[in-house]
């Protein structure tokens, strides 16, 4: 009997939860704010679905009642992607070590 592809996706999902669990516990508490902003940015990979939705219109009408939601989602996710990664970068650039005593 064939295994339903859903089971494979579910396996990926469950294993990723465990990966996430161990990886996040190893994040140093002082970087918890950048952690939140970067998770924000990467969860906007939902833009992948938004792009498919946006391109679902045909060549005569780019905007139909379904693709317009895709385009809106693209804009929202793009705000998050650019905003999230850039603000994370800005924060991380501020974390400096003590200068060696002269």
């Amino acid at each position, binding site marked *: 009997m064939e295994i339903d592809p859903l089971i494979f996706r579910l396996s990926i999902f469950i294993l990723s939860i465990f990966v996430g669990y161990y990886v996040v516990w190893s994040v140093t508490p002082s970087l918890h704010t950048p952690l939140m902003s970067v*998770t924000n940015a*990467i969860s906007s*990979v939902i833009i992948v679905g*938004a792009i498919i939705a946006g391109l679902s219109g045909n060549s005569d009408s780019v905007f139909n009642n379904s693709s317009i*939601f895709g385009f809106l989602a693209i804009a929202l996710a793009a705000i998050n992607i650019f905003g999230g990664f850039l603000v994370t970068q800005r924060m991380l650039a501020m974390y400096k070590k003590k200068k060696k005593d002269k």
Partner: protein
Amino acid sequence: MISANLSALFYLVSGVLFILALRGLSSPETSRQGNFFGILGMIIAVTVTFLSTGNFSSGFIFVLIFILVGGSIGAFIAYKIPMTAMPELVAGFHSLVGLAAVFVAISAFLNPEAFNLGKPGNIKLGSLIEMSIGAAVGAITFSGSVIAFLKLQGIMSGSPITFKGQHPLNAIILISIIVLIYFLCTTQSSNLFWILLVVSFLIGFLLIIPIGGADMPVVISMLNSYSGWAAAGIGFTLENTALIITGALVGSSGAILSYIMCKGMNRSFFNVILGGFGATDDASNSSSKEQRPVKSGNADDAAFLMKNASSVIIVPGYGMAVAQAQHALREMVDTLKKNDIKVSYAIHPVAGRMPGHMNVLLAEANVPYDEVFELEEINNDFANADVAFVIGANDVTNPVAKTDPQSPIYGMPVLDVEKCKSVLFVKRSLSPGYAGIDNDLFYKENTLMLFADAKKMTEDITKNL
């Protein structure tokens, strides 16, 4: 156009890069590289999506335009936002993820053929379940984050909003969401889909309004987690590994942060979610109403005390963020260091309005991160330190948490500030903290209260050093 198998492999690659992005945050040295991995993963995911649809018609141009518009807004915000506003920014970003998930779900529901999910009115059962869960969680994330944003921004009062029958009402709505999803899947009715969205928006709103301002670290982490689960739900619908992996990562990350924050307050997760904390503590309030003598001083006294100390521990809290005192504080510390005084910073896990809030502010003020310590690392040092300088923190220093089993914060881990030889407490008035309880520390022999704005007081002390 590339094959479905090849694009699935690329999505896996970007999922792995996202894992490495989080892994990088285990230390500040590797964190910047981690962020780079995250960006790379995102570029791969987006490029592969374009290649796999193979659609470079006029629609493609519009996609680029929308990315460009959104991206410029995002970049503009990222460069302009002051570091003290990070909690609001993160809450705002969460709401966008939630809304994007809702929009993608709507689009997939209206035009399932574009996603290979069947025909309108006859969507594959599994996909419909995943879609409706993704949409519901996304909607809750959106409205919940909007409320969190308004509370953090001060547009909405930070105090808990409670009313009679709140919990039964929420319970009924949550059950009705499950019932709606069940009927939606059996009938495929689009009306039920819209009702589901409205009800989910409503519950997100109702769940967050009873939660008070200082519980925001938990709320933000929780919404972070929700945005992840919403993304994962959509990932299952679209059969996209990158989304499933990322959703799971973000979901567990937010859950862990919520757990850490709850532990920092010694409260259970449900206790925070049910809200209304600090509103009903009559017992502890009445006993502390009597006037007790406090010693108050000025910048001169504080400067004198610190000049004669050999080690100083600084305890920052939300008040420092409000007064934007981090730069003034850093200047004061520079002066102290010139006088060969050892200075370190002690950060309580729930100081501020989001996890790691204080660390970012201190980093912004150029405080080296190896001078900043977490509660467990530094708590034993208070006994050997000469001066503790408490700036904008309150409840997290209250010794009552260790001594009085009647107190609502009993059992909460606190910084052992009172063990210092002397304590300087910068505060605007004697008013109790958010928990609504008096801080015993104010009345200790060795405590000197400095009643002033945190920034102004710090600057005055620097002048007097």
